């Protein structure tokens, strides 16, 4: 591998020796695909006949009037097949797996969103599929586990470490180092060793490319700012890529959890609890202690609950090319609530982080300006979490009655 995927010192490929050849093959395959003009067309064809790309850019007239500032647009990644932008990445990697002639895919998942997307892709492409998922998440996210199993995937609960997303990633790597010949690891976000950050960004860039074209058509000019939530960073990179060369402010919103002072958050780029480090194969900001041990993270949104962040975002931050903010759990529930009520769209808890920051800034922008918020996924998948966040007593009654029906 010649290009080791460094972005102003972030990134790289910190690989166990046994995976070096596998990454060489992956990087070569990706490079060839990327240089083959037919490949992107094939990708677009898949995304438009199997998922529903281009996804719409919805003008949010009610929210715009409510805040009285910039015209608010919502990029509708929630309308993707399986309900989030994760589909873009998995279908793209699926095409690469076909090129490599591999027959099995593995993936990590936290919220379950990427697991469902990967299991879906595997069903469609006819691959065997194993999804690693922290035991804690398996318990929390049973609906997604249910669907992954229906899709024919094996869901392997990870009982080690903190038993959440980062541990699932470790476990997926452990599988991969044993089975790399026929197996591809479908990493779910723009993190991990090179070429994953670049590759995932490449597939997700379809978001930003579409959004740019759409906003120009709708507004006749570029937006002032674009907002995306930041877990690993794939939906943010996907949106930002469309505007990297434009005079458009890129705003990434991390999970502020119970507050940046509380230590219960997942803010790697706007909290002093994070420091540069190397783990899971790449160099970036991590939430870690002075010894370099990764810390527990917290977010109301399982998909943002991760210790690391895309090295490309770290580099954009350092270069001042993107701004990062944090939204707390409480702010997220409020913004979600308002969005549902005003526009009839249900952002995922993850996506709602982007809405929080956009809502803070929209009023201060001119009415001639426009902004785009990336609705990376739909929230109805999160009914258990959301109902708990809203503390809905009738939901609780329903569950209790349902449980009684199972002779609990």
């Amino acid at each position, binding site marked *: *591998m010649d290009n*080791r995927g460094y972005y102003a010192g972030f990134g*790289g*490929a*910190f*690989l*166990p*020796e*046994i*995976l*070096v*050849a*596998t990454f060489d093959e992956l990087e070569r395959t990706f490079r060839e695909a990327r240089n083959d003009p037919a490949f992107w067309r094939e990708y677009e064809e898949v995304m438009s006949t199997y998922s529903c790309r281009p996804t719409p850019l919805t003008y949010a007239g009610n929210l715009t009037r409510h805040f009285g500032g910039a015209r608010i647009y919502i990029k509708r990644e929630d309308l993707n097949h399986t309900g989030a932008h994760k589909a873009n990445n998995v279908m793209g990697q699926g095409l690469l797996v076909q090129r490599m002639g591999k027959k099995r895919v593995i993936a990590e998942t936290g919220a379950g969103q990427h697991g469902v997307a990967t299991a879906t892709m595997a069903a469609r492409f006819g691959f065997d599929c194993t999804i690693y998922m922290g035991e804690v998440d398996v318990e929390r996210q049973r609906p997604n586990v249910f669907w992954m199993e229906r899709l024919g995937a094996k869901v392997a609960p990870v009982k*080690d*470490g903190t038993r959440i997303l*980062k541990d699932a990633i*470790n476990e997926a*790597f*452990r599988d991969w*180092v*044993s*089975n*790399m010949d026929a197996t591809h690891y479908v990493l779910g976000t723009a993190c991990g060793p090179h070429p994953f950050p670049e590759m995932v960004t490449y597939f997700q860039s379809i978001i930003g490319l579409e959004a740019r074209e759409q906003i120009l058509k709708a507004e006749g000019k570029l937006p002032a700012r674009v907002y995306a939530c930041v877990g690993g960073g794939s939906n943010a990179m996907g949106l930002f890529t469309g505007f990297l060369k434009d005079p458009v402010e890129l705003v990434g919103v991390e999970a502020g959890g119970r507050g940046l002072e509380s230590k219960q958050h997942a803010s790697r780029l706007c909290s002093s609890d994070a*420091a*540069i*480090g*190397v*783990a*899971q*194969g790449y*160099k970036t900001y*991590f939430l*870690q202690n*002075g*010894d*370099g*041990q*990764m810390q527990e993270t917290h977010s109301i949104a399982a998909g943002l609950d991760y210790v690391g962040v895309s090295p490309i975002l770290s580099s954009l931050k350092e270069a001042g090319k993107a701004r990062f903010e944090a939204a707390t759990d409480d702010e997220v529930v409020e913004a979600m609530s308002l969005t549902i009520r005003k526009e009839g769209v249900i952002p995922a808890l993850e996506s709602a982080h982007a809405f929080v920051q956009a809502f803070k800034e929209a009023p201060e922008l001119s009415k001639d300006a426009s902004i785009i918020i990336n609705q990376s996924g739909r929230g109805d998948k999160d009914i258990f979490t959301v109902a708990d966040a809203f503390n809905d007593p009738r939901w609780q009654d329903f569950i209790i009655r349902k449980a009684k029906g199972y002779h609990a």
Partner: protein
Amino acid sequence: MLETYLRDRRKQKDILLMTHIVLGYPSFEDSLRMVTAMVEAGVDLMELQIPFSEPIADGPVILAANQKALENGATVADCMTLAKTVSERFDIPFLFMTYYNILYRYGVSRFAEDMARRGMQGAIVPDLPPEEAGDYLDAMNGQNLSPIFIYSPTTPPERMKYLAGFGKGFIYCVARKGVTGAETRFSSDLEDYLTRCREATTLPLAVGFGVKSKTDVDFLKGKADIAVVGSQTIRLMDEKGGEAVEGFIRGLR
């Protein structure tokens, strides 16, 4: 120098034994007891693993030991302290094994200095290929420490040569795909692989991953210089207590 020590020692023995423990697992007192027992049992060198929260290349046994050690409060400073104790007390080489973030956060050159000052002889960092290892190599070489690199069955011959160019002391050959602690088949495939390793470097060869009996060690005689016993001793300690380990190791050769 580590390599010279190993070559001298190999003149006296068919094969050398390297063992592995996770520092602070379950406590630093236990770690010291284990080192003592292993040295008494005649091991030729030891890997001391500084626990890390994301030990990506380790299998369930060592992984659990890492976690337990951290839960019990193990710090890098504690590991440095223990390193000093054992290298003063015992007459064999000790190496650190850990993941790169531990060094990175500590400061790579400070880490090398502190290692050297505490009498350590080298380090194995499984997630640090030479391409990423500029600072590390400078620091290790500056302190006359041995950076140990790894061969795997998937490593092509040219890359083996390339890695040999950076390694000091010996090359760690992982016996098979996968992580530590799983079953390895000591077969003609392994033999072929070790032949390829041998052709790629003049450094001594250590073979690890799945070595857990006298038969395994015997198999390696003549094909490698060092047999590495890792997960099996931890498994033994977990199941039968630290006392069982000494006997086990004596029985390996």
